[in-house]
């Protein structure tokens, strides 16, 4: 993706090898930059209009800088509001299922739990391998949220990883001794990546309960019933 968007000078050796056998990716790499350039032109706003500049100047004339004391006063107000909200959340009965998005059935949630567990395991290993300072549960929860909103349908597929295969080319090699970098438990399998999902199925079993927990959190956050999730 970085290559398509002009962030990378050229394909890596691994990518070049992949492009020789994958026509879809080859087409993406060849035609992607043109599409990105067209988007840049099509979405550009051009210079600000004189009317808008005048409007900004007028507002700036009326604007005053806030002082530190005013800022602290705002923080106090927000603090009181937050405390009131917390108190209400504790004292009022929780009714999370009466509104919100349509409730998926138990089969959907069970299926999501499987994928979630697998995705969490894969993410956990990939993050460790790449030395990235993200929490695997956050990554998976974010991707499931994308999936639930229809942003990224791939996460619902058995073969889906939290990163798409295209991103493998972009992830830099972990810096030696970098903070947070750990030796991954499945490094040889991940280094190859093509069969990463299969290689990680063993890890999915270990991480399964955590995955279900994340799924439950996401479902609860969306106001869904979580009774259908397999325990």
């Amino acid at each position, binding site marked *: *993706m970085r290559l398509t968007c002009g962030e990378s000078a050229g394909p890596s050796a691994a990518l070049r090898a992949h492009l020789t056998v994958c026509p879809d990716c080859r087409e993406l790499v060849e035609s992607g930059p043109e599409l990105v350039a067209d988007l840049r032109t099509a979405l*550009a706003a051009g*210079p*600000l209009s004189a009317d808008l500049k005048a409007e900004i100047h007028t507002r*700036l004339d009326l604007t005053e800088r*806030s*002082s530190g004391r005013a800022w602290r006063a705002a923080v106090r107000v927000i603090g009181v509001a937050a405390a009131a909200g917390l108190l209400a959340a504790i004292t009022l009965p929780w009714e999370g299922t009466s509104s919100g998005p349509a409730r998926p059935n138990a089969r959907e949630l069970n299926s999501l739990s499987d994928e979630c567990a697998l995705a969490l395991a894969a993410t956990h290993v990939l993050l460790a391998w790449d030395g990235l300072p993200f929490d695997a549960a956050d990554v998976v929860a974010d991707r499931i949220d994308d999936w639930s909103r229809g942003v990224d349908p791939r996460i619902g597929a058995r073969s889906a990883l939290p*990163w798409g295969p295209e*991103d493998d080319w972009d992830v830099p090699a972990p810096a030696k001794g970098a903070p947070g970098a750990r030796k991954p438990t499945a490094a040889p399998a991940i280094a190859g990546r093509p069969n990463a999902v299969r290689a990680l199925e063993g890890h999915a079993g270990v991480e399964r309960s955590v995955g279900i927990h994340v799924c439950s959190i996401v479902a609860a956050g969306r106001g869904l019933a979580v009774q259908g999730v397999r325990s």
Partner: protein
Amino acid sequence: MRVRPGLRGRLDAADRTELEGWVTQFGPRLLAYARQLTAPQDAEDIVAETFCRAAQNLAAMRSSGRPDLYLLTTARNLCRDRFRRRPAQTVSAERIDQSPHPGAGPAVCAARQEHQRALRDAVAALPEPLREVVVLRTTVGLKFEEIAGLLHVPLGTALSRMHTAIGRLRQKLDYVRES
């Protein structure tokens, strides 16, 4: 709320000069971004309000070291506030920018405009998270690491959203050409 004397201060000439520099430098990119997140009639108001907020918080903006990211974050929050108040708004694909292409004939201009309109339609049809990444990368010019930071998502999510968006756009544009 009444403002007590001494708590606030007017912008001085140096502040104004600095702010106007930012308006010139970042204004068009902010406008392009706001147009993708909110209704066209609101986008200009969002941009003006963003600079207004920046003026009120100059110290924080300067200390951030990245005024462009500070402005984008402010604009994003303002857009979201507006969505909360008026969630039914849809983003129109019709845009104001229809600048002529110097040296191109009328037929070429018309074809380019048609292609750009198709692109804008296709982008407008994307879900907001995808649309946001597309405009931040292509028009605003942020790197994926910066996009991830701005949106508070992991780097892989930003990359993946862009990949999904590009895939959908290619599919849609092929459909447009065939039809």
